[in-house]
Protein backbone atom coordinates (compact mmCIF):
# COMPACT_ATOMS: atom_id res chain seq x y z
CA UNK A 1 0.00 0.00 0.00
CA UNK A 2 1.28 3.42 -0.93
CA UNK A 3 1.32 6.59 1.10
CA UNK A 4 -2.43 6.96 1.18
CA UNK A 5 -3.24 3.53 2.57
CA UNK A 6 -4.76 5.10 5.69
CA UNK A 7 -7.52 6.70 3.62
CA UNK A 8 -8.33 3.38 1.98
CA UNK A 9 -8.46 1.47 5.26
CA UNK A 10 -10.48 4.22 6.91
CA UNK A 11 -13.02 4.17 4.06
CA UNK A 12 -13.46 0.43 4.34
CA UNK A 13 -13.69 0.64 8.12
CA UNK A 14 -16.33 3.38 8.03
CA UNK A 15 -18.43 1.48 5.49
CA UNK A 16 -18.24 -1.82 7.39
CA UNK A 17 -18.97 -0.11 10.71
CA UNK A 18 -22.03 1.71 9.32
CA UNK A 19 -23.43 -1.38 7.61
CA UNK A 20 -22.86 -3.61 10.64
CA UNK A 21 -24.32 -0.96 12.93
CA UNK A 22 -27.47 -0.62 10.86
CA UNK A 23 -27.87 -4.40 10.61
CA UNK A 24 -27.44 -4.77 14.36
CA UNK A 25 -29.87 -1.95 15.08
CA UNK A 26 -32.44 -3.53 12.73
CA UNK A 27 -32.00 -6.92 14.37
CA UNK A 28 -32.36 -5.49 17.89
CA UNK A 29 -35.42 -3.55 16.72
CA UNK A 30 -36.94 -6.74 15.38
CA UNK A 31 -36.25 -8.64 18.61
CA UNK A 32 -37.84 -5.80 20.61
CA UNK A 33 -40.87 -5.83 18.32
CA UNK A 34 -41.16 -9.62 18.74
CA UNK A 35 -41.13 -9.24 22.53
CA UNK A 36 -43.68 -6.44 22.41
CA UNK A 37 -45.89 -8.50 20.12
CA UNK A 38 -45.71 -11.55 22.40
CA UNK A 39 -46.53 -9.41 25.43
CA UNK A 40 -49.51 -7.77 23.75
CA UNK A 41 -50.73 -11.19 22.70
CA UNK A 42 -50.43 -12.55 26.21
CA UNK A 43 -52.27 -9.56 27.66
CA UNK A 44 -55.07 -9.95 25.14
CA UNK A 45 -55.27 -13.66 25.92
CA UNK A 46 -55.42 -13.00 29.65
CA UNK A 47 -58.17 -10.47 29.16
CA UNK A 48 -60.22 -12.91 27.16
CA UNK A 49 -59.79 -15.64 29.76
CA UNK A 50 -60.70 -13.22 32.52
CA UNK A 51 -63.92 -12.35 30.75
CA UNK A 52 -64.75 -15.97 30.11
CA UNK A 53 -64.18 -16.75 33.76
CA UNK A 54 -66.54 -13.95 34.83
CA UNK B 1 -65.76 26.76 -13.25
CA UNK B 2 -63.52 29.71 -14.14
CA UNK B 3 -65.65 31.87 -11.85
CA UNK B 4 -65.10 29.58 -8.88
CA UNK B 5 -61.38 29.45 -9.66
CA UNK B 6 -61.14 33.24 -9.75
CA UNK B 7 -63.26 33.54 -6.60
CA UNK B 8 -60.79 31.35 -4.69
CA UNK B 9 -57.84 33.34 -6.05
CA UNK B 10 -59.58 36.60 -5.13
CA UNK B 11 -60.38 35.45 -1.62
CA UNK B 12 -56.81 34.35 -0.95
CA UNK B 13 -55.47 37.57 -2.42
CA UNK B 14 -57.67 39.65 -0.10
CA UNK B 15 -56.43 37.58 2.83
CA UNK B 16 -52.85 37.80 1.60
CA UNK B 17 -52.80 41.56 1.12
CA UNK B 18 -54.71 42.22 4.32
CA UNK B 19 -53.35 42.83 7.77
CA UNK B 20 -53.18 39.08 8.43
CA UNK B 21 -51.33 38.43 5.20
CA UNK B 22 -47.72 37.41 5.07
CA UNK B 23 -46.88 39.43 1.96
CA UNK B 24 -45.12 42.34 3.65
CA UNK B 25 -43.30 40.02 6.06
CA UNK B 26 -42.05 37.89 3.18
CA UNK B 27 -40.80 40.91 1.26
CA UNK B 28 -39.12 42.35 4.32
CA UNK B 29 -37.40 39.02 5.00
CA UNK B 30 -36.19 38.89 1.39
CA UNK B 31 -34.68 42.40 1.55
CA UNK B 32 -33.21 41.78 4.98
CA UNK B 33 -31.66 38.44 4.03
CA UNK B 34 -29.96 39.93 0.95
CA UNK B 35 -28.75 42.96 2.94
CA UNK B 36 -26.97 40.66 5.37
CA UNK B 37 -24.57 39.41 2.70
CA UNK B 38 -22.57 42.62 2.20
CA UNK B 39 -22.27 42.75 5.97
CA UNK B 40 -21.14 39.16 6.04
CA UNK B 41 -18.71 39.02 3.11
CA UNK B 42 -17.64 42.66 2.96
CA UNK B 43 -18.63 45.53 0.69
CA UNK B 44 -16.12 45.02 -2.16
CA UNK B 45 -18.11 45.65 -5.36
CA UNK B 46 -16.39 42.87 -7.34
CA UNK B 47 -17.19 40.20 -4.76
CA UNK B 48 -20.78 41.42 -4.41
CA UNK B 49 -21.29 41.49 -8.16
CA UNK B 50 -19.89 37.97 -8.41
CA UNK B 51 -22.27 36.51 -5.82
CA UNK B 52 -25.28 38.80 -6.51
CA UNK B 53 -27.31 36.36 -8.62
CA UNK B 54 -26.77 33.46 -6.24
CA UNK B 55 -27.58 35.51 -3.15
CA UNK B 56 -30.78 36.92 -4.61
CA UNK B 57 -31.93 33.48 -5.74
CA UNK B 58 -31.15 31.77 -2.47
CA UNK B 59 -32.90 34.53 -0.54
CA UNK B 60 -35.92 34.21 -2.84
CA UNK B 61 -36.02 30.44 -2.25
CA UNK B 62 -35.97 30.93 1.51
CA UNK B 63 -38.49 33.78 1.43
CA UNK B 64 -40.90 31.68 -0.63
CA UNK B 65 -40.77 28.98 2.08
CA UNK B 66 -41.78 31.40 4.85
CA UNK B 67 -45.52 31.63 4.39
CA UNK B 68 -45.97 28.14 2.94
CA UNK B 69 -46.93 26.35 6.14
CA UNK B 70 -50.01 28.60 6.44
CA UNK B 71 -51.06 28.01 2.82
CA UNK B 72 -53.61 25.29 3.62
CA UNK B 73 -53.38 25.13 7.39
CA UNK B 74 -55.56 28.12 8.28
CA UNK B 75 -58.18 26.87 5.83
CA UNK B 76 -58.06 23.44 7.39
CA UNK B 77 -58.37 24.81 10.91
CA UNK B 78 -61.48 26.89 10.23
CA UNK B 79 -63.07 24.24 8.00
CA UNK B 80 -62.81 26.22 4.76
CA UNK B 81 -60.77 23.43 3.20
CA UNK B 82 -63.65 20.96 3.65
CA UNK B 83 -65.94 23.39 1.85
CA UNK B 84 -63.39 23.99 -0.91
CA UNK B 85 -63.06 20.23 -1.40
CA UNK B 86 -66.79 20.15 -2.15
CA UNK B 87 -66.62 23.13 -4.52
CA UNK B 88 -67.82 22.50 -8.09
CA UNK B 89 -64.19 22.37 -9.13
CA UNK B 90 -61.68 19.48 -9.15
CA UNK B 91 -59.50 19.60 -6.05
CA UNK B 92 -56.41 19.94 -8.24
CA UNK B 93 -57.76 23.20 -9.64
CA UNK B 94 -58.67 24.45 -6.16
CA UNK B 95 -55.06 23.76 -5.20
CA UNK B 96 -53.87 25.53 -8.33
CA UNK B 97 -56.00 28.59 -7.49
CA UNK B 98 -54.57 28.77 -3.98
CA UNK B 99 -51.04 28.29 -5.31
CA UNK B 100 -51.59 31.06 -7.85
CA UNK B 101 -52.69 33.37 -5.05
CA UNK B 102 -49.59 32.36 -3.09
CA UNK B 103 -47.38 33.22 -6.05
CA UNK B 104 -49.16 36.55 -6.57
CA UNK B 105 -48.47 37.47 -2.94
CA UNK B 106 -44.89 36.13 -2.73
CA UNK B 107 -43.17 35.26 -6.01
CA UNK B 108 -44.42 38.26 -7.95
CA UNK B 109 -43.60 40.89 -5.29
CA UNK B 110 -40.19 39.25 -4.80
CA UNK B 111 -39.55 39.58 -8.52
CA UNK B 112 -40.64 43.20 -8.54
CA UNK B 113 -38.38 44.20 -5.68
CA UNK B 114 -35.41 42.18 -6.98
CA UNK B 115 -34.03 44.98 -9.23
CA UNK B 116 -33.58 47.18 -6.17
CA UNK B 117 -31.59 44.44 -4.46
CA UNK B 118 -29.64 43.79 -7.66
CA UNK B 119 -28.53 47.42 -7.65
CA UNK B 120 -27.52 47.16 -4.01
CA UNK B 121 -25.53 44.02 -4.84
CA UNK B 122 -23.69 45.87 -7.67
CA UNK B 123 -25.18 43.68 -10.36
CA UNK B 124 -24.60 44.77 -13.94
CA UNK B 125 -27.72 46.66 -15.02
CA UNK B 126 -27.58 45.06 -18.48
CA UNK B 127 -28.46 41.63 -17.05
CA UNK B 128 -31.47 42.94 -15.11
CA UNK B 129 -34.04 41.83 -17.73
CA UNK B 130 -32.63 38.30 -17.60
CA UNK B 131 -32.83 38.28 -13.79
CA UNK B 132 -36.46 39.43 -13.93
CA UNK B 133 -37.40 36.91 -16.59
CA UNK B 134 -35.67 34.10 -14.71
CA UNK B 135 -37.46 35.03 -11.48
CA UNK B 136 -40.79 35.25 -13.31
CA UNK B 137 -40.28 31.76 -14.74
CA UNK B 138 -38.75 30.25 -11.61
CA UNK B 139 -40.80 31.54 -8.68
CA UNK B 140 -44.09 29.88 -9.80
CA UNK B 141 -42.28 26.53 -9.59
CA UNK B 142 -41.27 27.40 -6.04
CA UNK B 143 -44.91 28.05 -5.12
CA UNK B 144 -46.11 24.87 -6.82
CA UNK B 145 -43.55 22.52 -5.26
CA UNK B 146 -43.86 24.38 -1.97
CA UNK B 147 -47.60 23.80 -2.03
CA UNK B 148 -46.96 20.05 -2.24
CA UNK B 149 -44.84 20.30 0.89
CA UNK B 150 -47.46 22.46 2.61
CA UNK B 151 -50.25 20.00 1.80
CA UNK B 152 -48.20 16.97 2.85
CA UNK B 153 -47.39 18.44 6.26
CA UNK B 154 -50.99 19.45 7.07
CA UNK B 155 -51.58 18.43 10.66
CA UNK B 156 -47.96 17.36 11.17
CA UNK B 157 -45.91 18.21 14.20
CA UNK B 158 -43.33 20.95 13.50
CA UNK B 159 -44.94 21.57 10.12
CA UNK B 160 -43.37 25.01 9.77
CA UNK B 161 -39.84 23.57 9.88
CA UNK B 162 -40.73 20.45 7.95
CA UNK B 163 -41.96 22.30 4.83
CA UNK B 164 -38.59 23.85 3.92
CA UNK B 165 -36.83 20.61 4.86
CA UNK B 166 -38.76 18.53 2.34
CA UNK B 167 -39.24 21.28 -0.27
CA UNK B 168 -35.82 22.92 -0.62
CA UNK B 169 -33.99 19.86 -2.03
CA UNK B 170 -36.72 19.55 -4.66
CA UNK B 171 -36.35 23.12 -5.94
CA UNK B 172 -32.57 22.96 -6.45
CA UNK B 173 -32.98 22.80 -10.27
CA UNK B 174 -34.78 26.18 -10.14
CA UNK B 175 -31.85 27.66 -8.23
CA UNK B 176 -29.26 26.22 -10.62
CA UNK B 177 -30.99 27.28 -13.83
CA UNK B 178 -32.06 30.64 -12.40
CA UNK B 179 -28.56 31.59 -11.33
CA UNK B 180 -27.13 30.07 -14.49
CA UNK B 181 -29.29 32.34 -16.66
CA UNK B 182 -28.05 35.49 -14.92
CA UNK B 183 -24.43 34.36 -14.93
CA UNK B 184 -24.54 33.41 -18.61
CA UNK B 185 -25.93 36.88 -19.41
CA UNK B 186 -23.26 38.57 -17.31
CA UNK B 187 -20.54 36.71 -19.24
CA UNK B 188 -22.13 37.97 -22.45
CA UNK B 189 -23.48 34.54 -23.41
CA UNK B 190 -27.03 33.74 -24.32
CA UNK B 191 -29.29 32.98 -21.36
CA UNK B 192 -31.95 31.27 -23.42
CA UNK B 193 -30.99 27.62 -22.67
CA UNK B 194 -31.30 28.32 -18.94
CA UNK B 195 -34.56 30.21 -19.39
CA UNK B 196 -35.94 27.42 -21.57
CA UNK B 197 -35.02 24.86 -18.91
CA UNK B 198 -36.71 27.01 -16.26
CA UNK B 199 -39.78 27.20 -18.47
CA UNK B 200 -39.74 23.45 -19.06
CA UNK B 201 -39.46 22.85 -15.32
CA UNK B 202 -42.41 25.18 -14.74
CA UNK B 203 -44.46 23.37 -17.38
CA UNK B 204 -43.70 20.08 -15.67
CA UNK B 205 -44.54 21.25 -12.16
CA UNK B 206 -47.65 23.04 -13.42
CA UNK B 207 -49.07 19.84 -14.89
CA UNK B 208 -47.94 17.34 -12.23
CA UNK B 209 -48.02 19.13 -8.89
CA UNK B 210 -51.83 19.75 -8.79
CA UNK B 211 -52.27 15.96 -8.63
CA UNK B 212 -49.79 15.65 -5.77
CA UNK B 213 -51.32 18.60 -3.89
CA UNK B 214 -54.85 17.30 -4.37
CA UNK B 215 -53.80 13.83 -3.19
CA UNK B 216 -52.14 15.26 -0.12
CA UNK B 217 -55.15 17.47 0.74
CA UNK B 218 -57.50 14.48 0.41
CA UNK B 219 -55.33 12.60 2.90
CA UNK B 220 -55.49 15.47 5.36
CA UNK B 221 -59.26 15.76 5.11
CA UNK B 222 -59.98 12.07 5.73
Amino acid at each position, binding site marked *: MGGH*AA*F*VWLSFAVAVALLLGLALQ*SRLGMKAAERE*HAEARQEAGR*DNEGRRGA | MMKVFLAIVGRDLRLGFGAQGAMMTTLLFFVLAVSLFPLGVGPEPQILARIAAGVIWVAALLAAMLSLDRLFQTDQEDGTLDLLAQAPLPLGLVALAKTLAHWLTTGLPLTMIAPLLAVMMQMDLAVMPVLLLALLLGTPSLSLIGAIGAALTLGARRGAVLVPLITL*PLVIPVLIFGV*GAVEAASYGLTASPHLLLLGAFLAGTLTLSPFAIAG*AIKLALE
Partner: protein
Amino acid sequence: MLHALANPARFLRLMGAIRPYAAAVAVIGLVVGLGWGLLYSPPDYQQGETVRIMYIHVPAAWMAMFIYAAMAVASATALIWRHPVAELAAKASAPVGAAFTLICLITGSLWGKPMWGTWWVWDARLTSMLILFFLYLGYIALWEAFDDPSRAGRAAAILALVGAVNLPIIKFSVDWWNTLHQPASVMTLAGPKIHPDILWPLLITAIGAKGYYVWVLSLRVRAEILQRQARILRFSAATDRRAG
Protein backbone atom coordinates in the same frame (compact mmCIF):
# COMPACT_ATOMS: atom_id res chain seq x y z
CA MET C 1 -48.30 -12.10 -6.63
CA LEU C 2 -48.82 -8.56 -5.44
CA HIS C 3 -52.08 -9.53 -3.86
CA ALA C 4 -50.53 -12.48 -2.07
CA LEU C 5 -47.88 -10.22 -0.59
CA ALA C 6 -50.50 -7.88 0.83
CA ASN C 7 -51.27 -10.40 3.52
CA PRO C 8 -48.81 -9.50 6.32
CA ALA C 9 -48.67 -13.05 7.70
CA ARG C 10 -47.80 -14.53 4.32
CA PHE C 11 -45.30 -11.74 3.71
CA LEU C 12 -43.64 -12.48 7.06
CA ARG C 13 -43.37 -16.18 6.19
CA LEU C 14 -41.87 -15.38 2.78
CA MET C 15 -39.44 -12.90 4.31
CA GLY C 16 -38.45 -15.46 6.94
CA ALA C 17 -37.70 -17.98 4.21
CA ILE C 18 -35.65 -15.50 2.17
CA ARG C 19 -33.74 -13.97 5.08
CA PRO C 20 -30.96 -16.58 5.54
CA TYR C 21 -30.19 -16.58 1.81
CA ALA C 22 -30.11 -12.78 1.68
CA ALA C 23 -27.78 -12.72 4.68
CA ALA C 24 -25.52 -15.30 3.02
CA VAL C 25 -25.43 -13.31 -0.24
CA ALA C 26 -24.67 -10.16 1.75
CA VAL C 27 -21.81 -11.63 3.76
CA ILE C 28 -20.23 -13.58 0.90
CA GLY C 29 -20.69 -10.78 -1.67
CA LEU C 30 -19.38 -8.01 0.56
CA VAL C 31 -16.44 -10.00 1.91
CA VAL C 32 -15.37 -11.33 -1.51
CA GLY C 33 -16.03 -8.09 -3.42
CA LEU C 34 -14.49 -5.73 -0.89
CA GLY C 35 -11.61 -8.11 -0.13
CA TRP C 36 -10.84 -8.46 -3.83
CA GLY C 37 -11.00 -4.72 -4.33
CA LEU C 38 -8.93 -4.02 -1.26
CA LEU C 39 -6.20 -6.62 -1.70
CA TYR C 40 -6.06 -8.07 -5.20
CA SER C 41 -7.16 -5.37 -7.64
CA PRO C 42 -4.55 -3.43 -9.61
CA PRO C 43 -3.63 0.06 -8.39
CA ASP C 44 -4.37 2.93 -10.77
CA TYR C 45 -1.41 4.42 -12.66
CA GLN C 46 -2.66 7.94 -11.85
CA GLN C 47 -4.25 7.65 -8.42
CA GLY C 48 -2.23 4.76 -7.01
CA GLU C 49 -3.75 2.84 -4.13
CA THR C 50 -6.36 5.49 -3.42
CA VAL C 51 -8.45 4.15 -6.28
CA ARG C 52 -9.45 1.23 -4.04
CA ILE C 53 -11.88 3.55 -2.26
CA MET C 54 -13.90 3.28 -5.46
CA TYR C 55 -14.85 -0.30 -4.52
CA ILE C 56 -17.02 1.08 -1.72
CA HIS C 57 -17.83 4.51 -3.08
CA VAL C 58 -19.29 3.42 -6.42
CA PRO C 59 -21.43 0.49 -5.18
CA ALA C 60 -22.68 2.72 -2.34
CA ALA C 61 -23.74 5.34 -4.89
CA TRP C 62 -25.49 2.67 -6.96
CA MET C 63 -27.29 1.34 -3.88
CA ALA C 64 -28.32 4.83 -2.76
CA MET C 65 -30.10 5.41 -6.08
CA PHE C 66 -31.39 1.85 -6.38
CA ILE C 67 -32.99 2.00 -2.94
CA TYR C 68 -34.63 5.35 -3.67
CA ALA C 69 -36.08 3.83 -6.85
CA ALA C 70 -37.26 0.78 -4.87
CA MET C 71 -38.82 3.12 -2.30
CA ALA C 72 -40.65 4.97 -5.07
CA VAL C 73 -41.99 1.73 -6.56
CA ALA C 74 -43.11 0.54 -3.13
CA SER C 75 -44.75 3.93 -2.49
CA ALA C 76 -46.61 3.82 -5.81
CA THR C 77 -47.80 0.30 -4.96
CA ALA C 78 -48.92 1.50 -1.54
CA LEU C 79 -50.84 4.45 -2.99
CA ILE C 80 -52.48 2.72 -5.95
CA TRP C 81 -53.43 -0.62 -4.37
CA ARG C 82 -53.53 0.49 -0.73
CA HIS C 83 -50.93 -2.21 -0.18
CA PRO C 84 -50.13 -2.09 3.56
CA VAL C 85 -46.89 -4.05 3.39
CA ALA C 86 -45.51 -1.94 0.52
CA GLU C 87 -45.90 1.14 2.68
CA LEU C 88 -43.86 -0.46 5.46
CA ALA C 89 -41.28 -1.68 2.95
CA ALA C 90 -40.83 1.90 1.74
CA LYS C 91 -40.47 3.11 5.32
CA ALA C 92 -37.95 0.38 6.14
CA SER C 93 -35.93 1.14 2.99
CA ALA C 94 -35.25 4.76 3.87
CA PRO C 95 -32.67 4.24 6.66
CA VAL C 96 -30.81 1.66 4.53
CA GLY C 97 -30.71 4.08 1.58
CA ALA C 98 -29.62 6.91 3.84
CA ALA C 99 -26.83 4.71 5.25
CA PHE C 100 -25.51 3.92 1.77
CA THR C 101 -25.72 7.60 0.82
CA LEU C 102 -23.77 8.51 3.94
CA ILE C 103 -21.14 5.87 3.11
CA CYS C 104 -20.87 7.32 -0.39
CA LEU C 105 -20.41 10.83 1.03
CA ILE C 106 -17.83 9.82 3.65
CA THR C 107 -15.78 7.70 1.26
CA GLY C 108 -16.01 10.48 -1.34
CA SER C 109 -14.59 12.86 1.22
CA LEU C 110 -11.84 10.40 2.16
CA TRP C 111 -11.07 9.93 -1.54
CA GLY C 112 -11.02 13.68 -2.14
CA LYS C 113 -8.39 14.41 0.49
CA PRO C 114 -5.47 12.60 -1.17
CA MET C 115 -6.75 13.40 -4.69
CA TRP C 116 -7.53 17.08 -4.40
CA GLY C 117 -6.02 17.95 -1.05
CA THR C 118 -9.36 18.90 0.49
CA TRP C 119 -11.99 17.00 2.43
CA TRP C 120 -14.86 18.24 0.33
CA VAL C 121 -15.14 19.08 -3.34
CA TRP C 122 -18.39 20.05 -5.05
CA ASP C 123 -17.97 17.21 -7.49
CA ALA C 124 -21.07 16.34 -9.53
CA ARG C 125 -21.58 12.94 -7.91
CA LEU C 126 -20.87 14.07 -4.36
CA THR C 127 -23.26 17.00 -4.78
CA SER C 128 -26.13 14.89 -6.10
CA MET C 129 -25.48 12.35 -3.33
CA LEU C 130 -25.69 15.15 -0.77
CA ILE C 131 -29.06 16.22 -2.19
CA LEU C 132 -30.21 12.58 -2.20
CA PHE C 133 -29.20 12.39 1.46
CA PHE C 134 -31.40 15.42 2.19
CA LEU C 135 -34.29 13.75 0.32
CA TYR C 136 -33.90 10.61 2.45
CA LEU C 137 -33.80 12.66 5.65
CA GLY C 138 -36.88 14.67 4.61
CA TYR C 139 -38.74 11.43 3.88
CA ILE C 140 -37.81 9.99 7.29
CA ALA C 141 -38.74 13.28 9.01
CA LEU C 142 -42.17 13.27 7.35
CA TRP C 143 -42.82 9.73 8.62
CA GLU C 144 -41.91 10.82 12.13
CA ALA C 145 -44.06 13.96 12.05
CA PHE C 146 -47.48 12.31 12.33
CA ASP C 147 -49.14 10.45 15.18
CA ASP C 148 -51.39 8.50 12.83
CA PRO C 149 -49.26 5.92 10.97
CA SER C 150 -51.66 5.55 8.03
CA ARG C 151 -51.67 9.30 7.42
CA ALA C 152 -47.88 9.41 7.73
CA GLY C 153 -47.44 6.48 5.40
CA ARG C 154 -49.48 7.92 2.58
CA ALA C 155 -48.05 11.44 2.89
CA ALA C 156 -44.55 9.96 2.82
CA ALA C 157 -45.51 7.85 -0.21
CA ILE C 158 -46.56 10.98 -2.12
CA LEU C 159 -43.29 12.66 -1.13
CA ALA C 160 -41.26 9.67 -2.31
CA LEU C 161 -43.03 9.77 -5.69
CA VAL C 162 -42.54 13.52 -6.09
CA GLY C 163 -38.88 13.04 -5.19
CA ALA C 164 -38.49 10.18 -7.67
CA VAL C 165 -39.95 12.29 -10.49
CA ASN C 166 -37.69 15.17 -9.54
CA LEU C 167 -34.50 13.21 -8.94
CA PRO C 168 -33.44 12.82 -12.61
CA ILE C 169 -34.02 16.56 -13.09
CA ILE C 170 -31.94 17.35 -10.01
CA LYS C 171 -29.19 15.04 -11.27
CA PHE C 172 -29.26 16.70 -14.69
CA SER C 173 -29.20 20.20 -13.20
CA VAL C 174 -26.29 19.34 -10.90
CA ASP C 175 -24.28 17.88 -13.80
CA TRP C 176 -25.07 21.01 -15.81
CA TRP C 177 -24.03 23.23 -12.90
CA ASN C 178 -20.85 21.23 -12.48
CA THR C 179 -19.78 21.62 -16.10
CA LEU C 180 -20.47 25.37 -15.95
CA HIS C 181 -18.23 25.75 -12.92
CA GLN C 182 -15.36 23.68 -14.28
CA PRO C 183 -13.58 22.17 -11.29
CA ALA C 184 -9.89 22.93 -10.80
CA SER C 185 -8.90 19.34 -11.33
CA VAL C 186 -9.74 17.33 -14.42
CA MET C 187 -9.95 14.17 -12.32
CA THR C 188 -13.41 13.22 -11.16
CA LEU C 189 -14.66 10.54 -8.82
CA ALA C 190 -15.65 8.46 -11.82
CA GLY C 191 -12.56 6.33 -11.48
CA PRO C 192 -10.46 5.12 -14.38
CA LYS C 193 -11.78 3.33 -17.45
CA ILE C 194 -13.72 0.22 -16.55
CA HIS C 195 -11.44 -2.78 -16.88
CA PRO C 196 -12.53 -6.38 -16.14
CA ASP C 197 -10.16 -6.51 -13.16
CA ILE C 198 -12.08 -3.56 -11.74
CA LEU C 199 -15.54 -4.56 -12.89
CA TRP C 200 -15.66 -7.96 -11.17
CA PRO C 201 -15.04 -6.81 -7.60
CA LEU C 202 -17.41 -3.88 -8.22
CA LEU C 203 -20.19 -6.19 -9.42
CA ILE C 204 -19.68 -8.73 -6.62
CA THR C 205 -19.77 -5.93 -4.03
CA ALA C 206 -22.94 -4.56 -5.64
CA ILE C 207 -24.62 -7.98 -5.46
CA GLY C 208 -23.54 -8.33 -1.84
CA ALA C 209 -24.96 -4.88 -1.10
CA LYS C 210 -28.29 -5.88 -2.69
CA GLY C 211 -28.34 -8.98 -0.48
CA TYR C 212 -27.62 -6.78 2.52
CA TYR C 213 -30.52 -4.51 1.56
CA VAL C 214 -32.96 -7.44 1.30
CA TRP C 215 -31.71 -8.87 4.58
CA VAL C 216 -32.00 -5.64 6.58
CA LEU C 217 -35.29 -4.80 4.85
CA SER C 218 -36.77 -8.14 5.94
CA LEU C 219 -35.68 -7.48 9.53
CA ARG C 220 -37.11 -3.97 9.58
CA VAL C 221 -40.39 -4.83 7.84
CA ARG C 222 -40.91 -7.69 10.26
CA ALA C 223 -40.34 -5.29 13.16
CA GLU C 224 -42.81 -2.79 11.68
CA ILE C 225 -45.52 -5.41 11.09
CA LEU C 226 -45.16 -6.89 14.58
CA GLN C 227 -45.23 -3.44 16.17
CA ARG C 228 -48.36 -2.55 14.27
CA GLN C 229 -50.06 -5.81 15.23
CA ALA C 230 -49.06 -5.32 18.86
CA ARG C 231 -50.58 -1.85 18.81
CA ILE C 232 -53.82 -3.20 17.36
CA LEU C 233 -53.92 -6.02 19.95
CA ARG C 234 -53.41 -3.56 22.81
CA PHE C 235 -55.96 -1.17 21.39
CA SER C 236 -58.65 -3.80 20.94
CA ALA C 237 -57.88 -5.26 24.38
CA ALA C 238 -58.36 -1.81 25.88
CA THR C 239 -61.68 -1.26 24.12
CA ASP C 240 -62.80 -4.76 25.13
CA ARG C 241 -62.04 -3.97 28.76
CA ARG C 242 -64.00 -0.76 28.52
CA ALA C 243 -66.93 -2.56 26.86
CA GLY C 244 -66.86 -5.50 29.27
